């Protein structure tokens, strides 16, 4: 609950260093990582490397931000990894041209159409999750766990397990420019990073400056109270899963554009990394606490760590060990740091569960 303060002051949020420090752990963890690796390797702290690492982070960052929205409402979305994979494959499928037997024609949608359709697919997957959770009261963990398998299976079925290559498109068909997302740079900044930045800023605005944001936080904090205050709780829940789906689809697009190929197994187990990012970023899995800045920090911590380990040539095995340790430490650090509040927060658990289960 590091974000007590930051969430509490949502509206008055900004690049306020004081509060940034309050967010604590994620921030310090990142600094520590950058310093350590810069000492260990001269190339680590170079613009080009920072940019490369950022473009790796972009993928997880997008997933994490979507995940944050879901977690803020007290849910969880295990299907983002599979959605990423399916989205990539779907895009690849469209780039190869869609043939309508009936008319015997093959349609090659232009890239922007592909992008829109893919995001729509992500939204659809999210909507299914959301409806299961909000209307059929299926626990989020289960609903999205099921979707994790289904989406992955569908992706495999679509390509029969194979990978779509050369998504470059063909000038003759007017569907070129797909690799744009992955290769282009604006002011030397990779597109993926820009996409992440854009999404992050939009979410920040949405969470801090719009009624929707307030609805999300209140739904996560106490959905019954929110409902009685006129918050459309069910629709909010569906919305966050939809957004998470769209973010995953975007990540899928960026990734397959970077690889100029789309494989059905892409993104396996990314959901765990995404969740780790959100949690390191100080969000509470119980909902209602957390913010975009923290989540971004979390995503960068993980990304910069794993890339750093590769750069200084640590064995793949040690990489796994370190990642795990850092995840725990980052969160541990916080819970110690704030253990002073224990007493004060002790009552709340007792209050809520008891409260909610009182009938009448």
């Amino acid at each position, binding site marked *: 609950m590091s974000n007590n303060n930051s969430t509490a002051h949502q509206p008055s949020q900004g690049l306020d260093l004081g509060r940034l420090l309050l967010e604590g752990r994620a921030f310090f963890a990142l600094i520590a990582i950058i310093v350590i690796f810069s000492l260990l*390797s001269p*190339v*680590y702290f*170079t613009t*080009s*490397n920072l940019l*490369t690492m950022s*473009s*790796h982070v972009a993928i997880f960052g997008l997933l994490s931000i979507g995940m944050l929205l879901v977690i803020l409402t007290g849910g969880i979305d295990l299907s983002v990894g599979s959605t990423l994979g399916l989205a990539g494959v779907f895009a690849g499928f469209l780039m190869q041209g869609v043939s309508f037997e009936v008319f015997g024609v093959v349609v090659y949608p232009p890239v922007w159409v592909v992008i829109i359709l893919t995001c729509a697919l992500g939204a659809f997957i999210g909507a299914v999750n959301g409806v299961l959770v909000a209307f059929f009261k299926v626990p989020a963990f289960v609903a999205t766990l099921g979707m994790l398998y289904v989406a992955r299976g569908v992706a*495999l079925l679509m*390509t*029969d*397990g*194979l*990978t779509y*290559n*050369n998504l470059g498109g063909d000038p003759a068909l007017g569907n070129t420019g797909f690799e744009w997302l*992955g*290769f282009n740079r604006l002011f030397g900044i990779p597109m993926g990073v820009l996409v992440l930045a854009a999404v992050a800023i939009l979410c920040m605005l949405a969470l801090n400056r719009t009624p929707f944001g307030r609805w999300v936080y209140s739904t996560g904090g106490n959905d019954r109270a929110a409902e009685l205050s006129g918050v459309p709780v069910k629709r909010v829940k569906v919305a966050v899963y939809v957004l998470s789906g769209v973010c995953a689809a975007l990540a899928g697009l960026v*990734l397959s554009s*970077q*690889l*100029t*190929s789309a*494989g*059905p*197994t*892409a993104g396996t187990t990314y959901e765990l990394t995404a969740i780790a990012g959100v949690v390191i970023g100080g969000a509470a899995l119980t909902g209602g606490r957390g913010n975009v800045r923290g989540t971004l920090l979390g995503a960068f911590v993980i990304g910069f760590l794993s*890339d750093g380990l*590769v*750069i*200084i*040539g640590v*064995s*793949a095995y040690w990489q796994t060990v370190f990642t795990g340790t850092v995840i725990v430490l980052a969160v541990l650090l916080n819970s110690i740091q704030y253990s002073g509040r224990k007493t004060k927060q002790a009552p709340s658990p007792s209050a809520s569960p008891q409260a909610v289960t009182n009938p009448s």
Partner: protein
Amino acid sequence: QDEGLISIIVNDASNPYWFTEGEVARTTAEELGYRANVSSHVGDTNTESNQVDTAITNQAKAIILDPANADGSIGAVRRAVDAGIPVFIVNAEINQQGLAKAQFVSNNAQGAALGAQQWIESIGDGARYVELKGAPSDNNAATRSNGYETVLSQYPDLTKVGEDVANWDRTQGYNRMQNMLQANPDIQGVISGNDEMALGAIAALKSADRLDDVVVGGFDGSPDAVDAVKAGDMAYTVLQPVAIFAEEAVRVADRYITTGETGLDSEKQLFDPRFIE
């Protein structure tokens, strides 16, 4: 006519190489009049052993198995053999003779050696390079890496400046390559344990547009790689005669089922790889 069932167990059908393996085996089996049933264990020995069990349950006439692990798969094979089902190993070997009726393995060590030589031809005998390795749990990763090593170590001017595990996977190949490019911007070559990782590396080199001055070598000869070689992105790839030995395995299995004889001189049949460049 129904000659019975042949269970085909491959590693990971979502990898073009093993996909071909499975498909060829199935088509061959079907044209020989068998029912075929392809499943993939994705390198997990437990999944593999479950699939062997199901094959036993299904009273398969024979099992065509691409083992998940040279050691780890022995238990499963033994169980099948105990149940009286002939097992024919393809692609990778198991470290125990006399269990399987026959092992049709591509000669990974030799393939690696070939690859390494080809790679040197295209890059010259003095260069700085990095290596991408496959999943450690799969002993082909070690075999190939050693194969490279034996050849390349003979050229003192070749310096390996980095290596990393990318688990046969394209995305990881991409990320790892980007990182290693950062660590050593001046490399002239990449030698990869399989095509998927090589293709990932190529994507990374493209985005850093270094592809022109870096030589990338693959392994497996998967269709994607062949395209890449044609396009000039990849220097070469070592074609594992997967289609050939997959078919051969089924035909031998058929012979064994009908005649009770494999008609082979030795259990282990090595298939020599060739290039595509």
